[in-house]
């Protein structure tokens, strides 16, 4: 047994400086907290920028908001009263402050196409999109990540080839066509799944709204029949969206993994005698988590935007459909309200992936 001749037996070496180990950890924690404060600041600025953009768009659109409120046949006096009530006679910066205050209160104005406050509409349509996007992303991650990892580990093998074809089809098939074919086959012919919409007509409105996510609300209510019904309706569109995010996620995972598997530390892990599974999942995979999370967050974000085509094919009452209809009707309040919600979600997702990035990569400052 070799003993260090300078330091004496182990454990009796030079004592670590007082609080050596904890101080290193505390420094690391302090760095992280400071960086979190930095993130929060940039988050606030980004949101401010988002509001500024939506405000400007609202003002420069060639749609008269007053006319939309009072109607074509209003008298000049009615028009002027509404004009003043909406604060449009004030300087533009005051208008912006008022807009900001309204948005912060959750007041996006009234939608002229539905007649409800936009906030109320969004509370109805956004959960539908969240439910679909979440399930779709879950499918994309649970299948796409392992598929990408295995394709990289067995590069050129049959799994790699299958994964390549699956991704290619996912990229290149028009989603509305796949959606229609899916409906035709699984709903029309086989009858395995529910048809368009979120629920069968007899379950509509039967489950009390808690989160707005019907799968969860029906579980909360303990209503298994409603849960099964909602599931049979969501499974097809969610699989479709899942397939698309799977195509993207699996390709990205594969290329991240290939890069890591050629790294020297992977050889080190093999030299140590680790099994191939531990080399891949314990060493290489941990190194792709950071870029992978960014990819997943981006893919989730784009699904949250509402996949208009999927929502239309499946009559899914989500935000993509809502915004599109509002846009075609010139309903600016609804469009801008929806934009703020989607934009905020994007910023929040970015923040989340930033935080995870800092937690997962010790090199991040």
């Amino acid at each position: 047994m070799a003993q260090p001749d300078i330091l004496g037996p182990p454990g009796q070496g030079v004592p670590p400086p007082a609080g050596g180990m904890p101080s290193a950890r505390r420094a690391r924690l302090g760095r992280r907290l400071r960086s979190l404060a930095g993130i929060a600041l940039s988050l606030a600025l980004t949101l401010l920028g988002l509001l500024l953009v939506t405000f400007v768009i609202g003002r420069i659109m060639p749609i008269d908001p007053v006319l939309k409120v009072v109607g074509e046949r209003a008298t000049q006096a009615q028009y002027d009263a509404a004009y003043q009530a909406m604060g449009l006679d004030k300087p533009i910066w005051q208008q912006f402050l008022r807009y900001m205050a309204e948005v912060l209160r959750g007041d996006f104005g009234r939608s002229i196409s539905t007649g409800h406050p936009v906030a109320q509409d969004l509370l109805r349509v956004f959960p539908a999109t969240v439910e679909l996007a979440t399930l779709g992303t879950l499918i994309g991650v649970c299948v796409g990540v392992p598929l990408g990892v295995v394709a990289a580990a067995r590069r050129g093998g049959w799994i790699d080839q299958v994964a390549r074809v699956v991704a290619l089809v996912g990229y290149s098939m028009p989603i509305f066509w796949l959606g229609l074919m899916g409906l035709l086959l699984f709903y029309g012919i086989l009858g395995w799944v529910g048809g368009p919409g979120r629920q069968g007509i007899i379950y509509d409105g039967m489950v009390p709204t808690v989160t707005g996510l019907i799968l969860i609300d029906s579980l909360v209510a303990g209503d298994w029949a409603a849960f099964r019904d909602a599931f049979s309706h969501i499974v097809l569109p969610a699989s479709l969206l899942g397939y698309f995010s799977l195509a993207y996620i699996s390709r990205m995972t594969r290329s991240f993994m290939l890069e890591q598997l050629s790294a020297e530390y992977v050889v080190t892990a093999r030299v140590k005698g680790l099994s191939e599974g531990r080399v891949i999942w314990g060493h290489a995979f941990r190194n792709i988590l950071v870029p992978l999370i960014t990819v997943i967050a981006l893919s989730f974000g784009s699904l949250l935007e509402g996949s208009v085509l999927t929502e239309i094919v499946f009559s899914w009452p989500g935000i993509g459909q809502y915004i599109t209809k509002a846009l075609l009707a010139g309903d600016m309040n609804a469009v801008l309200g929806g934009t703020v919600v989607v934009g905020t979600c994007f910023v929040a997702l970015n923040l989340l992936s930033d935080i995870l990035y800092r937690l997962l990569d010790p090199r991040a400052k």
Partner: protein
Amino acid sequence: MSPLLSVRNLRVSFPTRSGMFEAVRGVSFDLGRERLGVVGESGSGKSMTGRAILGLVRPPGRVEAERMELGGESILNLPEARMRRLRGSRISMVMQDPKFSLNPVMTVGRQIMEGYRLHTGKSRAAARDKALEMLAAVQIRDPERVFHAYPHEVSGGMGQRIMIAMMLAPDPEILIADEPTSALDVSVRNEVLRIMDRLVGARGMGLIFISHDLNLVAQFCDRVLIMYAGRVVEELPARDLHAAKHPYTQGLLNSLPRLDRPVERLAVLQRQEGWRDALPAETP
């Protein structure tokens, strides 16, 4: 005494578009409890020899040999599961640059403990003690701190000492050091070498020291193999390196500047086609 490692006529080849490329073409040597230097230029097959011994040549690469024995047992083309048990526990390797050969997202302590626990089946606490002991053995002044550090938080010389600690923790019989000091600052090279030498010597291990640095090998090793184009062209005791007979070795030596024999111009190595296929020079 039978050698720790015995290799006869080792060949490593890779398929390419234009037929098989032979990276190693019939290398033979025995390794005892000694420091064996393997010298050669880039592409001479010295690193590939090391990887072949560890069973790390991945398909479609092919390893063939008349014999490759570890402690009298054949390790030629062992099934992967059996080779894995030897790797790390009986033969280990230190690579060139600790910046790349340590996993950046795992603490030093975990990386050391991982291999040790795998081969000894010891508890976490025992592995932790062993890791701290090994860190102290490679003369890291504050093992506790380094144990919790990530690789980017330590210097290159310290990283290489960590590699040595990690690879020696399960007590292997043979260490292959593949250019272990090439990526280090000159100032810490000797220190790392001394530490490695002492640990390897004290454990009675065999060391295969792969390098392109003739002077270093001459000083540090007991015996030297000179490789050229996948073959051993000369084998001789390190202290007799200056008396090398093969023109390639002489050419290498002549291309080094020497303080005691200043020359106007350093000689340039003139390669001869015949070296590629000549049989290795016989040495007694």
